[in-house]
């Protein structure tokens, strides 16, 4: 049986287009469904008011703030470590046991189920440190989750820098470190920023690792008090903080407000929109910085 190869080629191409189209439809359906379900809550009041006990009409302001602050804190920890490890792997690492060990560890950390990281956090960051359920404990657990990703992103974008730049710099008498610091990092910066912001977006939706570390309650926040040491200050890193993803999980599980359903749907929609904003924002800023550096 011989089929015309040209016809087969056309059919195959058609199938590839169909599969690709299928993924777009799936995404549109998914995002559309979540936003449609949450449409009633997509207003300013929902994201600017606090949850109300046992009554309808509560908002998600503290949870939203906690999510942003927790991701920010964990990025403060993750980025320096991950970037340094990325620099080491991309620039200094030789093909030896130490390098292999690092790579193995990154992969092992990356494949840990986040619930396991959460439980590790419970015993180490919550109980052993004596801090209790705090933003800080959550941020540290989140950092373990994000470290492998940031390291990989850093290594990839540093490796992406063309060797000719590097050789030119070394030939001019700069040390390896000067070359990295003054040349390679700036050139790789757009890619780095895109990767970091995207990781932050993903961290935004993490719940399992935070259930047992940052806690499932949010004490009343006083948004007029910005002293990081005050108990009710939103900036205090040593207070319990329920994030948006955890809140969705909790409302689904044990929510008692009569409009628990709508709150969960609305929060999910906000979460998806945030992921969108992070995604588009990361590209935009990555490109903006790229253009600025190349002098356009």
């Amino acid at each position, binding site marked *: 049986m011989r089929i015309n190869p040209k016809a087969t080629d056309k059919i195959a191409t058609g199938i590839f287009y169909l599969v*690709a189209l299928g993924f777009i439809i799936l995404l549109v359906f998914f995002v559309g469904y979540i936003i449609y379900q949450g449409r009633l809550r997509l207003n300013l009041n929902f994201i600017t008011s606090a949850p109300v006990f046992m009554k309808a009409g509560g908002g998600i302001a503290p949870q939203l703030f906690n999510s942003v602050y927790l991701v920010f804190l964990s990025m403060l920890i993750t980025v320096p470590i991950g970037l340094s490890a990325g620099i*080491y792997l991309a620039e200094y690492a030789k093909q030896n046991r*130490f390098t292999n060990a690092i790579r193995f560890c990154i992969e092992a*950390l990356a494949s840990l189920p986040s*619930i396991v990281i959460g439980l590790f956090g419970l015993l180490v960051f919550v109980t052993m440190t004596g801090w209790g359920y705090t933003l800080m404990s959550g941020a540290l657990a989140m950092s373990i989750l994000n470290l492998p990703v940031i390291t990989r992103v850093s290594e990839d974008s540093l490796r992406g820098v063309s060797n000719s730049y590097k050789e030119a710099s070394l030939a001019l008498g700069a040390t390896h*470190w000067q070359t990295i610091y003054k040349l390679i990092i700036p050139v790789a910066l757009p890619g780095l920023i895109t990767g970091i912001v995207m990781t932050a977006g993903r961290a935004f939706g993490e719940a*399992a690792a935070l259930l047992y570390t940052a806690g499932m309650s949010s004490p009343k926040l006083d948004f007029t008090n910005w002293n990081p040491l005050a108990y009710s200050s939103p900036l205090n890193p040593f207070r319990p903080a329920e994030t948006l993803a955890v809140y969705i999980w909790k409302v689904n599980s044990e929510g008692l407000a009569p409009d628990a359903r709508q709150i*969960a749907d609305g929060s999910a929609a906000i979460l998806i929109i945030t*992921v969108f904003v992070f995604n588009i924002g990361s590209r935009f800023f990555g490109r903006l910085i790229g253009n600025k550096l190349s002098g356009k």
Partner: protein
Amino acid sequence: MSKKSKIYNFKHEYLGRSVVTFFGLLLILITIIMVLFLASKGMATFLDNHVPLTQFLFSTDWHPERGIAEGGPVVGVLIFIVGSVLISGLALLISTPFSVALAIFMTEISPKLGKKIFQPVIEIFVGIPSVVYGWVGLTVLVPFVRNHFGGLGFSMLAGSLVLAVMIFPTIATVSADSLSIITEDYKEASYALGATRWHTIRKIIFPCALPGILTGVVLGLARAFGEALAVQMVIGNSIRIPGSILDSTINLTSIITMDMGNTAMGTPWNNALWSMALLLLLISFLFILIIHRIGRKGNVSA
């Protein structure tokens, strides 16, 4: 070397170099601590509760709540292992063809669309939180399976479908990476010989990229094994080995998430859950080793 240049070198080379090396070391340290921690918690089942390893791994008797009067707790986790393997395996079967096809589309058929549209699309899929995946699964997929395939809806099939969507970005991205590094020479040679694009993809590109694609598949499998919140919401969590893909079942991560908070630490029940977490870690080590094997083979044949 003069003293001055030594200081110069220290400031401009060794300092930075030591710092980044130190953080590389730190990564290793964190991993070792996590492994040691999990190992010490996970070994309690065998060391303190004296459960034989073979019973733990190969028994289907799961009665951790049983009192001393009835013969004491029995912790055999075979059902959960089988559940994890079946659900992840089915998810892989569903996801791989589509993911690889998408990767080929993105690299060979329309790289422009691939970069402009599908790269962001994949990233958004990655960014959707697993709580949301689970919730959509529960409200859309479970009733859909119940109405169109039969059964209760809470099923292995529903779990695998949710997982299939969740692991496709991993498989597609890794596959696309390995497809994109195939040199143009091969392709051009094939086209010069009069081969069609499909023929070239099938006979040249796909075989060359196979090790990379397999790496993606194994990474996807690892992700499927470790996923917790989403799967748990749709598989029904009946403690049994499913008779068909429409039966409800349970896996390792579900039993850990469900029981961990409700059991007190140090009890045989809680210890068994930690042993399962350790088992998950060992399984991911196994996957990493497999990936390295594949990678090495790929290097040899290329």
